């Protein structure tokens, strides 16, 4: 039995749903989930061989969302999966707002042209500062056990660009100007670079779920399962940004099915 520690923000929900609906835990894996709101992760610390919250309030919240466990005992697990927490293609898309690179076929539209190498390096540096990488470094500092980072999903299709807040990264223009596939490819290259740098696996958004390169098909996001008629826009956008258990099942296969016995 492989004991898997899954740590994540709200994007862990899709993976959890996918695993449970596919009875993954009956296939030689024992899953333990630790979840926290993304804002709290910088407040986690390594104490001895455990990861715990800096403050009592955080330890209580970790326990609330993690089956009563208020800390993560590294030695209790055989491998670690860190979901979301800043491993997100949106950062590249946001960089795309003011910068383009050679690999992108669309028009420059006044943006500064970077080399592919510079675009990837910049993106990697942004993601290096994510909470996910911070957690991974804590784990890696005391064990060589496998670590897998799972990127947050692409936004789901189904909402109009006009409904998005101004700070929403320019996913829609990237599609409109034909750069979406290029951005997605660059993100996969960034994931590969992170994997090499951190002796880990990094799972990019599932390509089979994608539409127009940068979006997930509607059927793979929470928006497809919710009755959002009349719901506040923030709820609809929230549902759009999160994968559902169908997406989670695809993720689970990528995370756990490695063509070998666990």
């Amino acid at each position, binding site marked *: 039995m492989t004991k898997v520690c899954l740590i994540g923000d709200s994007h862990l929900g899709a993976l959890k749903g996918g695993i449970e609906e596919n009875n993954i835990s009956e296939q030689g894996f024992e899953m333990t989930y630790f979840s926290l709101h993304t804002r709290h992760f910088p407040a986690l610390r390594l104490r001895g061989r455990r990861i715990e919250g800096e403050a009592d309030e955080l330890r209580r919240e970790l326990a609330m969302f993690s089956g009563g466990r208020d800390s993560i005992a590294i030695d209790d697990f055989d491998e670690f999966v860190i979901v979301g927490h800043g491993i997100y293609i949106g950062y590249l898309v946001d960089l795309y707002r003011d910068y383009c690179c050679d690999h992108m076929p669309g028009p420059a539209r006044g943006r*500064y042209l970077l080399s592919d*190498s510079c675009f990837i390096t910049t993106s990697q540096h*942004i993601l290096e500062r994510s909470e996910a990488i911070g957690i991974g470094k804590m784990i890696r500092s005391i064990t060589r056990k496998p670590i897998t980072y799972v990127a947050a999903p692409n936004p789901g299709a189904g909402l109009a660009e006009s409904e998005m807040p101004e700070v929403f990264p320019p996913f829609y223009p990237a599609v409109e100007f034909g750069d979406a596939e290029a951005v997605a490819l660059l993100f996969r290259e960034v994931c590969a670079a992170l994997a090499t740098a951190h002796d880990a696996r990094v799972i990019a958004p599932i390509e089979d779920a994608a539409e127009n390169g940068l979006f997930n098909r509607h059927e793979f996001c929470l928006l497809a399962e919710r009755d959002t008629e009349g719901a506040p826009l923030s709820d609809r956008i929230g549902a759009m940004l999160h994968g559902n258990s169908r997406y989670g099942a695809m993720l689970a296969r990528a995370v756990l099915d490695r063509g070998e016995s666990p």
Partner: protein
Amino acid sequence: MLSPYSGLESRSFWKTGVVEKHPLELKDLYIKKFDIGRNDWIATAGSCFAQHIANRLRLRGFQVIDAEPPPPGLDSETAKQFGFELYSARYGNVYTVRQLLQLIQECSGLRAPLIGVWEKNGRFYDALRPSVEPKGLSSPEAVAAHRSQHLSRVRSMLERTDLLVFTLGLTEAWIHLADGTVYPTAPGTIVGCYDPSSYAFKNFSYDEVLQDFLELRTLLKSIKSDIRFMLTVSPVPLTATAGREHVLAATVYSKSVLRAVAGYLAMSFPDIDYFPSYEIIAGAPARGFFYENNLRSISAVGVDVVMRTFFRQHGAAEAPFDSPPSRPDEARAPNSSVAAINALQEVFCDEVLIEAFAP
């Protein structure tokens, strides 16, 4: 008996101006020719030493132009590897006056190098600034696109430059025989391939350096009529010489020519000042103290002394070193977009988190 030296200040005499002064306290070594205002836009270019000047000017709150700022998220060390934050645009080191002249001519549409792309291992490099893309680009066309953007930014930079701080570095260069294009590195040292039938070594003379600068000045005045110049000579010796002289003798020749040209220009034009950083670092009073062990690199203490001397005349000497740039739009952009995305995610993730994991 009265002599022309009677009544001169102590700074005019070697004994009282140098011997009896501590080398760190040559306070009157430099007297400015003109003021540099806090609202003046400053552009920097030149050899490596100019990087120090740009950094210190920025830290002191002077408005140093950054026409090609790095993307947010890139740390400063990596940004520099891509040629960002070294000078006012990503032209890399501009060692010779001819190189700067040709850059200004090129961004003014007055020249185009016959050979502008060098290749190495299937990757392509801008031969005129080969160090700004460490891994090169995928095609000559990509190099051309990047160069076009760069030239446009340099042109815009020059159009608003009130003061050009230029550090003269070398007289030695490698040129393309067919059109005279000067390259910052010898073909084959970083990238490219040395073909003696195409490229040749060139050691510029006093007259050539002077004429190049005069032409450069005229051209810049046509772009920005009130532009002024602050010249310095890099105290960093040559790494190597391709001439027949010993590298020490070659260094002295190179620096002597550059110093003489800078001196002549400063004596001849009211809009050109010379700042004696070379004398502070390389002069006999310092006894080599400001060089690192390789006798080339300048120590941080040396840069401090140079810039302290500069700021004594140009104000802000008491300003803290960590003063922010005075124009927010010129400052290195904080990673505000990352914060915005984080905030966006935080707003949206509560409900999902509770639904999936709350007891």
